[in-house]
């Protein structure tokens, strides 16, 4: 089983790396990180803050775009090209196929994020001339961004397990937006009464919570993040991704592929 999963994941990674769109996106992200240098110059005394905020935002946005656009194509492309039948004709189970694809894409995203992170630190080094301990929380912010990618990729695979690529992209992006505003949704729930309150609270648990993972502004100001937050965000990302993937497996297992 592990062998099969690794094989599918490695293939997915290879396929994603070969995709030209991916290079374009990484180039754009690095360009944006570079642009942060210029924006930082325009502002007074905010170079470092602007650079970190803009850099982390660029990593998030482009990573999410990658997660969604590659994630939604993982299943549908295999069906369209009819390569899925070849894979499933071998001793590969459907859930192994899905999980392998997920792991492959996750690996791709980790590698991309690593390069973008290197770009960000290079830009930071050119602005501040040296890196210090206060820059370490940036790595935590990047780690949280990776956790977001884990969730959004799982969500994209869930939608692609039953919907068309376009709708999967729209749904996944909508989930990202709603998840980013989850604090506002919680605030709305707190102000509501009766059934509306219960529905709003239920929604806050149903949609992914990305607000707690967006710590760009805190790390830009050198705020130390509690260890408990890192732990709970990690657990949350694992559980939420697990939930989305389990639902995807349930749907994909029942899906008629003929």
């Amino acid at each position, binding site marked *: 089983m592990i062998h099969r999963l690794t094989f599918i994941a490695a293939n997915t990674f290879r396929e994603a790396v070969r995709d030209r769109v991916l290079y374009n996106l990484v180039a754009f992200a690095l360009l944006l990180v570079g642009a942060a240098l210029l924006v930082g110059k325009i502002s007074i005394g905010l170079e470092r803050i602007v650079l970190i905020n803009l850099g982390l935002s660029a990593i998030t946005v482009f990573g999410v775009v990658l997660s969604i656009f590659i994630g939604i194509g993982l299943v549908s492309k295999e069906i369209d090209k009819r390569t899925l039948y070849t894979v499933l004709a071998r001793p590969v189970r459907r859930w192994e196929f899905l999980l392998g694809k997920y792991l492959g894409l996750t690996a791709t995203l980790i590698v991309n994020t690593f390069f973008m992170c290197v770009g960000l630190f290079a830009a930071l080094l050119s602005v501040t001339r040296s890196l210090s301990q206060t820059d370490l929380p940036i790595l935590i912010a990047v780690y949280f961004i990776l956790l977001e990618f884990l969730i959004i990729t799982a969500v994209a695979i869930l939608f692609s397990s039953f919907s068309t690529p376009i709708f999967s992209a729209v749904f996944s992006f909508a989930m990202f937006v709603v998840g980013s505003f989850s604090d506002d949704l*919680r605030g709305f729930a707190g102000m509501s009464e009766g059934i509306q309150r219960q529905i709003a609270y239920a929604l806050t648990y149903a949609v992914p919570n990305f607000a707690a993972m967006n710590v760009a502004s805190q790390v830009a100001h050198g705020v130390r993040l*509690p260890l408990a*937050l890192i732990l*709970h965000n990690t657990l949350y990302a694992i*559980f939420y991704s697990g939930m989305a993937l389990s*639902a995807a*497996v349930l749907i994909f*297992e029942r899906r008629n592929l003929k």
Partner: protein
Amino acid sequence: MTEARSVRSTAAILLLLCATGSIVSLRAIDRLRPQATLEEVLYLRSPKAVKRLFLGFTGLAASIYWTKTVQYFGSKHHEHAMRFDLLPPLLDLTTSLDPHLLVAYETGSIFLAQRPPEGAGKPDLAADFVERGIRNNPTDWRLYYQLGFIHYIERNDYAAAANAFDRGSTVPGAHPWLKIMAAMMAQRGGDLQTSRFLWTNIYESSEDRTIKENALVRLMALRVDEEVSSLEQLVAGFKMKTGKAPTSWQEIISAGMLRGLPLDPSRKPYVLNNGRVLLDDYRRFPFVRKGLPPGTASSEFIMPGALRPKDARAVQPKH
């Protein structure tokens, strides 16, 4: 059990376990970030930047910012905070994004005007904020009403309040009480001439019997205020002329400065007490600001026993 069923059962169990796990961990995250929704830093303060960020969906952006404003104020209020630093920029952003969001002007100005910890304690800013709302929504009389109340309650500027109510009363569809409020404010501010004009206008334009009668009571109170002022001037003139304060009206009449006993609208003579001019029974005269015993506040209500306009000497508006 077939293999497919076994996979489905495992996936269903995992789904439930992961859902429970995500809820538990999310609750733990919430405990770590109790003020998560209410950060003290407002990064985007430029309405133009926010407009572009929301791709032109300014109505939606305004609604989101208004929700944030209410959340911010609510949480600060709950903490009994004495500072509401983000309130002005949040309101500015909200109304810049949607200049016609009346609720933001109406409620936001209350948030701004009230004294801490009930509000930000910035009545001048609140008045400016509503003025901006009026500029953007000149046909909405409620904003004038709101502005008048801010001037009246929070700024104690009766002339400005009268002006706001009066401007609002000219807006088509405005509530008739705006005229009344304008007149009341003018009266309170000591601008008797404007007040008389406005009350006369109310008396003549209203078809409501109660409003008409109330206008007459107000006119009666104005007349008392004017008469007491004139009599006080007379007493001061007598003192200047003779070098001593008069002890009775008779002395002034004998000096040829007054033709007869000065009567209040209930046809009872005004009382001269240690050089002060007082009403014989001030409780019969609601709304009067003069002729009251020292330390007595004016009654703002028509209490039982008050003099009715029909029992008073002529108070009908003169033309």
